[in-house]
């Protein structure tokens, strides 16, 4: 015989933080952020480590001087917003739904060549942890392959008003002629299909010329430059095959780029390695001395420990400096100014929307990579890796392989993520990093969990302060990023 017990309240899964003199909660099941008042705090404190029936909870709230009606209203509000749950046992976890199988393609990353004129020691495409198997495959993409890619993108972007092409390498500008032809073809093809198109490219900047810069500016091609900072840091790993550093070559070219490319923001993307962890100094150099609009940082991807891997101490130092720049970002934002530290801007964008990701990124979903030979892959980082191919531009997307990749990469499939409050934003982290580190694209990137949680908390606090002291900045930021 079953004994019927009265159901009890328990707290939902949330991360609480204070900022700007107020209390906030980040609701994990939704990715929602609420500022809470003292009454809500009182309910949460009551339910800390214990469960209470409705009658008991309300009685306690009333004993603190609240009217019965007020206490009932408070509990009802929290229940409706799902910050507390009534019932027996934990509610079944609310998992973000997988996107539909026919999720339309939005972007392609065209690896216009797998050749590079630099030999950066940490390169994921050519270095010790490479997964690409380019032997016997074309080194440069042909115009036919590129056209087939554009056609595939248009055909698979069902219902989308705009599509995007990123040009990537190797060194992208070693095949600039193709890039120019593709832009011409894609402009005409998308116009005929009634879609808009935007472009971006990533380059090491060694081959930039004034003519190329003019072309990029005229065609509103967003430019990301891979570089690591001032001369002694840039030249540590970003070298030519003979070991010569690349700073002296790119510096005048960058100045031309930044001075004359006026239509899109110019971004620097820094790879942090052992000995290249001076985040603040790198930021100052790239932002203030060279004039980049945005600067973003990411630790190098490595499998086992490499000479250039960042160790725990390196990561601690990096995070401490990230926090310094994050404080600066907030000071700028409070004055209504843009700071340029991409790592904060990106997270703030996601917090504005309240993303609750089923997958860490759009790889294999709205975005795919195309190798010079026309093989499709989840993203540019899997280019030319046979084990990760996902169809071909001529024959279309291999739906079975895509389904397998996405099933593995779903946050629900990552056991370790289920107890982490940062999973709506992280969803287990980069598929490629997971493969290099653990041999499985569906493995959670456990080596940076603490770091992700600390960073998410830092950005939540920035968000909280802004929501209290300069909410207008967040609104303008959302508009600028196309989020509103």
């Amino acid at each position, binding site marked *: 015989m079953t004994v019927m017990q009265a159901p009890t309240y328990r707290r939902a899964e949330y991360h609480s933080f204070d900022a700007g003199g107020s209390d906030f909660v980040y609701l994990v099941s939704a990715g929602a952020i609420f500022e809470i008042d003292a009454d809500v705090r009182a309910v949460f404190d009551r339910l800390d480590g214990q469960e209470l029936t409705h009658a008991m909870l309300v009685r306690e709230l009333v004993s603190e001087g609240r009217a019965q009606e007020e206490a009932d209203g408070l509990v*009802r509000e929290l229940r409706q917003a799902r910050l507390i749950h009534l019932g027996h046992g934990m509610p079944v976890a609310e998992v973000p739904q997988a996107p539909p199988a026919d999720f339309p393609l939005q972007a392609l990353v065209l690896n216009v060549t797998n050749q590079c004129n630099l030999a950066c020691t940490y390169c994921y495409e050519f270095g010790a942890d490479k997964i690409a198997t380019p032997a016997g495959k074309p080194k440069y993409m042909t115009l036919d392959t590129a056209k087939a890619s554009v056609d595939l993108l248009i055909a698979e972007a069902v219902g989308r008003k705009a599509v995007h092409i990123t040009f990537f390498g190797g060194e992208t500008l070693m095949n600039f002629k193709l890039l120019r032809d593709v832009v011409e073809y894609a402009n005409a093809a998308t116009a005929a299909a009634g879609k808009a198109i935007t472009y971006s490219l990533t380059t090491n900047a060694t081959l930039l010329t004034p003519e190329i810069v003019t072309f990029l500016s005229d065609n509103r091609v967003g430019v990301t430059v891979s570089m690591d900072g001032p001369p002694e840091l840039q030249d540590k790993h970003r070298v030519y095959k003979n070991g010569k550093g690349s700073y002296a070559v790119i510096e005048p070219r960058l100045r031309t780029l930044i001075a004359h490319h006026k239509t899109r923001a110019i971004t620097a993307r820094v790879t942090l390695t052992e000995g290249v962890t001076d985040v603040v100094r790198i930021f100052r150099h790239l932002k203030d001395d060279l004039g980049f609009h945005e600067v973003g940082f990411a630790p190098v991807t490595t499998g086992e420990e490499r000479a250039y891997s960042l160790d725990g101490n390196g990561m601690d130092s990096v995070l401490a400096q990230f926090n310094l720049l994050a404080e600066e970002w907030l000071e700028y934002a409070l004055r209504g100014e843009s700071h340029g530290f991409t790592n904060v801007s990106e997270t703030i964008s996601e*917090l504005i929307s309240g993303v609750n990701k089923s997958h860490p990124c759009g790889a294999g979903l709205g975005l795919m990579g195309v190798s010079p030979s026309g093989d499709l892959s989840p993203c540019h980082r899997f280019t030319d890796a046979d084990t990760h191919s996902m169809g071909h531009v001529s024959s279309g997307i291999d739906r079975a392989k895509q389904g397998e990749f996405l099933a593995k990469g779903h946050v629900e499939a990552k056991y370790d993520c289920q107890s982490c409050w940062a999973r709506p934003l992280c969803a287990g982290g980069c598929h490629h990093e997971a493969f290099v580190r653990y041999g499985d694209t569906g493995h959670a990137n456990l080596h940076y969990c603490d770091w992700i949680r600390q960073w998410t908390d830092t950005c939540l606090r920035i968000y909280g302060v802004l929501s209290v002291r300069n909410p207008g900045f967040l609104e303008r930021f959302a508009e600028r990023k196309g989020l509103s």
Partner: protein
Amino acid sequence: MKHLRAINKKAQRIDEAVTQMEAAVSPDADMEEDVVALQQAPRPHVPMGCSLSFSPGWEVDAGGGTAGLCQPVERDIYDCYVTCFWPVQVPDHVNYSPDWASNCATATKDWRSLDLVFP
């Protein structure tokens, strides 16, 4: 909402949903949830494993599934026949299937003679 201030888009969506719920539900609605069947934790509550008295019931195997039960899962309805307060899904011994268990004098021996009912 009175105590929560939504500060991102997802929270605003929840705010809108709560406002709609408030409009739909009268404030006096009972906040104590009704007692429902199988409500013991974890819900839905299903008794585990075999018991000493042979009473094929709402059983699951040690893994929480039905693959390892000591008898076919189809026979579970026997326990609901006559004795159960949950009559809808089982043979109706009053009106339509009064003889359903007439060939099953001893459940431990005769359970194979229980047949499915096709209404």
